[in-house]
């Protein structure tokens, strides 16, 4: 047990009138090793938390498009704006969106990161390249997040032109992962 206080109870009255706040820090620190060695009593629980979210019409069209090798956006005519990923309404004018458009599968890197962490915060040696891609046919700063591949981590930069690499058609299932990653376009 680390730093076990003699009196874990909080005794503020004794420090009344002191001018430095907080007067001291209530709490008992526990180290990760104390937990592993079961030096404190604890309970454990594994909840079952499963969902099946309704995708909604806009996402259905988008996912269906991915299956066919297309990235679909939708137009808000009032704002003259193509929304990618698509949605049923425009968040700026609060009106319904109208016309489906393909935005193509090429674009530029809006921003990126070179990650040495996986999704559970475990350290990895071969980094994951990840970033936001703005499509050529969508307005500036309208894109999606995805992986980059066939790319040198030394050479990646903001504004680089990239193109989607799709899974073979028979392996696509209507998911964002139907795109394997984005790779640099020739000349980059």
């Amino acid at each position: 047990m680390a730093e076990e206080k003699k009196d874990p109870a909080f005794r503020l009255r004794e420090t009344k009138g002191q001018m430095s706040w907080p007067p001291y820090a209530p709490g008992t620190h526990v180290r990760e090793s104390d937990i592993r060695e079961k030096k404190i009593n604890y309970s454990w629980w594994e909840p079952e938390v499963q969902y099946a979210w309704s995708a909604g019409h806009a996402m259905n069209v988008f996912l269906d498009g991915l299956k066919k090798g297309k990235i679909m956006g939708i137009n808000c005519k009032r704002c003259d704006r193509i929304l990618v990923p698509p949605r049923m309404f425009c968040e700026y004018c609060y009106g319904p969106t109208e016309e489906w458009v393909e935005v193509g599968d090429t674009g530029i890197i809006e921003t990126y990161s070179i990650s040495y962490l996986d999704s559970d915060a475990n350290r990895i040696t071969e980094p994951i390249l990840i970033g936001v891609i703005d499509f050529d046919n969508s307005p500036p700063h309208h894109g999606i997040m995805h992986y980059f591949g066939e790319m040198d981590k030394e050479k990646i930069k903001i504004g680089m032109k990239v193109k989607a690499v799709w899974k073979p058609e028979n392996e696509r299932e209507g998911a964002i992962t139907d795109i394997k990653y984005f790779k640099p376009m020739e000349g980059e």
Partner: protein
Amino acid sequence: MTFGEKQTDPLAKTHWRGDMQADYFYPSGVAGDKFFEHLKNNDDFMVCKCKKCNKIYCPPRLYCEDCFDEIPDDAWSPVAATGKIRLFTVAMLDAHGEKLAVPRVMALIDIDNTDSAMLGVIKTSDLDADLTGKNVKAILKPKDKREGTLKDIVCWE
């Protein structure tokens, strides 16, 4: 019509599966740790009493929920792991809404000599009996198998 177009294809893939699965660790806390540490080595409950409200808490607390005063170390004492059934119900369903193979009798048990109750599973074969007011005793795991959680209480009998 709220939207420009609506879904009309009944065969469209409408749902997306996912989860929020994670495991959870719950330290027993200052008061809980005393309770479970005691339960690991003894067959009775360690409880505490608010000196101001004269309320005896089981499970014990660090502070009194009514007057919000701290409960000092010298207000702790053990009580026997026995009680009286205040309320009971016969649960037929599991958490998924399916029939339990064996119905489970769940009860709220007033712990003797305290002002508190605990939830518990009652071991009984008679599902139609009126159990209200019956005296029950906690059945604990063998001492070498106790882990310092509420699971050390197997059931009440």
